[in-house]
């Protein structure tokens, strides 16, 4: 018995020794990889952060000293913000800011409500003509006729150069419909039947049972709608001419600022500080996005599910 155990240990020790050596050797490779890894990530963070800081320093800088900026402004000035908020550009800026708020709020509320409503009957396994109805929605995701028919439709409806063209074209969102449908399908039948027995009508069932349960899905759908509507200006480029100042969404206004430098060319300060004014307008336009960025942080911290489930 004794002999047997000693044999085992004897056989075991020589096996272990070379392994330890191996480990130390690979440890060097692995450790250098770790160092490289951290260095690369650090470089990436710098590449992301430094241009952001450097560019937005322009907004706070005196235009005479623009070329001294590396990361932070050397001579502080708030004139660019004044020009945007209360000066020559204030009318267009505030108008487009509120246009963007209206567009974002209306699209977010209406689109998600409409798609969730439609997803509810479709989530029933015995919904009549389910496949056909799904096909009706999915076809629009797969094929679009291009921008000209949409442009002509808006032309006929006399909606060109108004924010309503941008709003109406963005409401249908089949991707979100599919997300809601997948979620509703997962809600257990027991809860729905219990509510039915308690006398809930179909409307109550939807608004009091299904919507509260789907709040996380609503949250992320709304978040992506908000970001998309606030930052997007492709449809505004199609439907809103640069002469229709009353209907600019904010991102489109900034695009025109960059593309045309549509500033008062007789004002010396404005001519000199064009870049500072642009930077200030952009910084102001990011503020709403920064306000909802904590959602992204929670999204990253809490493990991510939506991205892979979509579709």
């Amino acid at each position: 018995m004794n002999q047997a155990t000693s044999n085992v240990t004897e056989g075991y020790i020589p096996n272990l020794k070379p392994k330890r050596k191996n480990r130390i050797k690979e440890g060097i490779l692995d450790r250098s990889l770790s160092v490289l890894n951290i260095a690369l990530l650090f470089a990436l963070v710098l590449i992301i952060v430094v241009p952001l800081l450097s560019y937005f320093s322009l907004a706070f800088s005196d235009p005479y000293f623009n070329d001294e900026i590396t990361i932070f402004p050397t001579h502080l000035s708030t004139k660019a913000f004044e020009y945007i908020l209360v000066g020559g550009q204030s009318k267009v800026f505030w108008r487009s800011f509120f246009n963007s708020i209206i567009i974002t709020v209306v699209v977010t509320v209406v689109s998600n409500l409409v798609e969730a409503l439609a997803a509810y009957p479709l989530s029933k396994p015995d919904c009549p003509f389910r496949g056909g109805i799904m096909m009706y929605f999915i076809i629009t995701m797969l094929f679009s006729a291009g921008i000209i028919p949409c442009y002509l439709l808006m032309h006929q409806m006399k909606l060109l150069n108004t924010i309503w063209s941008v709003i109406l074209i963005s409401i249908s969102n089949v991707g979100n419909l599919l997300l809601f449908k997948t979620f509703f399908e997962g809600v257990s039948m027991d809860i729905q039947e219990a509510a039915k027995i308690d006398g809930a009508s179909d409307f109550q069932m939807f608004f009091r049972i299904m919507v509260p349960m789907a709040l996380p899905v609503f949250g992320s759908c709304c978040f992506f709608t908000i970001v998309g509507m606030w930052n997007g200006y492709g449809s505004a480029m199609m439907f809103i001419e640069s002469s229709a100042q009353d209907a600019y969404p904010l991102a489109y206004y900034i695009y025109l600022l960059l593309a045309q430098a549509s500033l008062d060319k007789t004002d010396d300060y404005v001519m000199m500080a064009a870049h500072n004014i642009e930077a200030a307008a952009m910084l102001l336009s990011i503020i709403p996005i920064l306000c909802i960025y904590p959602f992204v942080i929670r999204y990253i911290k809490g493990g991510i599910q939506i991205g892979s489930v979509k579709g």
Partner: protein
Amino acid sequence: MKNKQTPMKDNSFKTSPKLGEKNGYWKTQGRRLVKHRRILPFLIPAALFTLIFSYIPMLGVSFAFKDGFNLMRGDVMWNMSHFGWTFKNFINIFYSDKFLKALGNTLLINVLKLAICFPLSIILALQLAELKNQGLAKLVLIIVCIPNFLSWVIVISIWNGVLHPDTGFIGKLFFPGRVIMGEDNLFKIFVILLNIWKGIGWGSIIYYAAITSIDKSYYEAATIDGANKLQKAWKLTIPAIMPTIALMLVMQFSGMMAAGFEQIYTMMRANPNLEDTQITIDTYIYDISVVHRTDIPFATALGVFNGLVALLLMVAGNKITTKTLHRSLW
């Protein structure tokens, strides 16, 4: 179709599957219609929006087969009977040098995106998962996701500013006297670089989530067998997240006909000398139809052609994912 009716409760379908099928189908649908009559109206708003803003424009496809429509003359959409039917708009597409140029640019940009942007997100996810301190990894992720939430015009202005030869700190140091974002042969490189800068963090999230959900005991076993980190990443992590990679790859592939309209058009407007050589299909259609309003039927034909190819790619992509990954794209 997915909703093939399965007869419920009894086993009668085993004995006579064909006999009662058609009759039974309408009967079941009718019964279901009655059962769900109260919630079916929930579909109406979404169906209406889809009808008006997706299906009615599809009727506009007929423009592509018409000749001589002129918006500037005041022709209206519904009243098109006096224009002759023709197929020449579609034939003209392939004789248009500008279109061929645009097609080449679009495909090249997408191939570059697939070859460069796509793997970089995976590499970033691998790097983040490799960190010992996962709190730090999430902090890095939170920072590198920021550009994804800026609009394209801001991203382009930032880099235009930073690379500016007089005022930008990178431009002053490395490229004095050159507006490098306005140089023709560097344009596509900048399209890709800006795509990386904007999208790398957000793109890596999905892979990061997939990697962190891999069972840790595989890695312990690999460590005991003496695998180093590179081997573990290549032989273990990559195969484990292969389904996610394949899905994203197919999705990218399906979007091959669009090259990011907002980004490319804004980059062109920021440096107007690029407009002729760097057109993509999107920007070409936009230029003819909205900016110049010249040849509406031709532009519609272009849009329809583009949409059809995109549809083909989507359907092919869906076939691939359902065959290999057993999951549908939609």
